[in-house]
């Protein structure tokens, strides 16, 4: 098993950990971090893809994808943080409010 495969496996593992954290934690900052961890996992998988079959020079296409992905993740994180701050200002807590009784699930 090549190193690339282990990196890819690690990436998949990060993705799963991140997903679990997203679902399990209540605090918004943790959820945002979880998303970032998921993203990192995906980027790791992509990086691992770049060195497939023992070619001499890594494939630049997945690297380009990673960079794009990072940019998107930065923007998304910024948006998420702003929303978290606004929600905290409104409700006093950085958690998603539970459903009100009158809003049927």
């Amino acid at each position, binding site marked *: 098993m090549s190193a690339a495969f282990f990196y890819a496996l690690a990436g*998949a593992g990060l*993705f799963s950990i991140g*997903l679990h954290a*997203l679902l399990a934690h209540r605090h*918004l900052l943790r*959820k945002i971090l979880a*998303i970032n961890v*998921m*993203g990192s*996992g*995906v980027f790791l*998988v*992509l990086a691992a*893809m770049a060195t*497939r079959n023992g070619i001499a020079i890594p494939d630049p*296409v*997945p690297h380009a*994808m990673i960079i*794009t*992905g990072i940019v*998107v993740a930065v*923007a*998304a994180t910024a*948006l*998420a943080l702003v*929303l*978290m701050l*606004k*929600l905290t200002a*409104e*409700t006093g807590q950085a958690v*998603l*409010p539970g*459903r009100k009784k*009158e*809003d*049927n699930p």
Partner: protein
Amino acid sequence: MDIPWAVMLIVLPLAAGLMAFVWPRVAQTLVLCCSLAIALAVAGLALQLWHHGVFHHALGGWEAPLGIGLYADGLSLVLLTATALVGMGVSVYASAYFTLDDAHHFWPIWLFLLAALNALFLSADLFNLYVTLELMGLAAVALTALSGGRDALAGAVRYLFATLSGSLAYLLGVALLYHAFGSVDMATLAGRMTPVPAAWAALGLMSAGLLLKTALFPLHFWLPPAHASAPSPVSAVLSALVIKASFYILLRLWIMLFGPFAGDGVAALLGGMGTAAIVWGSVQALRQTRLKLLVAYSTVAQIGYLFLAFPLAAAAWNAAAVLVLSHALAKSAMFLAAGNLLHFGGHDRIADLDRVVQRLPLSAFAFALAGVSLMGLPPSGGFIGKWLLLEAALAQGRWDLAAVMLLGGLLAAAYVFKVLGHAFTQAAVTHEPTAVPARMEWAALLLACSAILLGFTATPLLSLLEIGAPFGGSGP
């Protein structure tokens, strides 16, 4: 002279968005002109496709597999039309809806959303789809949070998490496909696709991600809070266009890449989820006491219809496309009309609608017409879609799917007339009415009329859909 209409569709709103951000004073005029320009560009593109067949353009002259390509065929055209029409209606509506402060934030993000939508429907490779999907998602989340209230913010945050998870799952799938087959260009991939484990994993991941973004039952949990608490023009766009974008991608992937090897099992699963969506969404809509939540659950139900097309395969894709367009028009009209009712009475409790048929006739009529299309009653686009879908189901002996479709229609009638029935009666307590600007009423009414008129233009629409044979397996 061959005008690159497709390129204009992306560049115009992008540039306008930047200008609107820098010069807020001209933003409103800019938006209205831009939405008109988009509509004209779509018309131009339609003519171009009609005369010359599919449109292919490599940005910067860089061809696949490295370059970003633009591709337009009949299916893209239908979705672009939906974007243009709903875009116009919502732009006009929003010009009267938002206060000056909110409007400064709304216009630039709205234009970016339009640019992202157009780019998505014109994309030819998987990674570009990811980028545009993310752009669209972020813009949509920002718009949802615009009103700043607790519900809107909570809804927006939930939406953001859902959309980001979905995109990341999708991206992981793209990575796997690239690893297995060496390309992200859809046409190339279609040629190289084989049912290796990587492909199955990609199918699972990408479908899960896209289903989450399309809010198919049971992954719909984020939709009602987000759509109901967003400002009305935003709700309209979210229900009409944004969730259709992820559906569009799923449809393309299925037809071109996964459909041939995924087999009946996955199709049946999608059909089953669609059925559950129709029943669950309609029942939940019936239980609501608040108008916007009712309309949001109606969206959950209507999305289910689109997925009934998967078990029916080739015979039903036309129906799905027609349903996408008619639902976009009808649902946006319905949300805009609901927004008017909310603005008028200061509340959106269904039981207290208090004779709005008499006091807000245009909006009530818009709601009714939109409801006619959603119910699938003639003459409307919804009826045409329902007819085509029923025809496909009966021709293949799928009685279960036919029964679900018909039941869905009756349930839709139940919740639409729940609202209309109360619109005739007097409420126990009358509230001081706030005047609704004429622009807002007419925007809702015209969109609703387009949904009805679609019922008469099915033949040209179906011929346009044929361009490039999007359902024949060829595509970007």
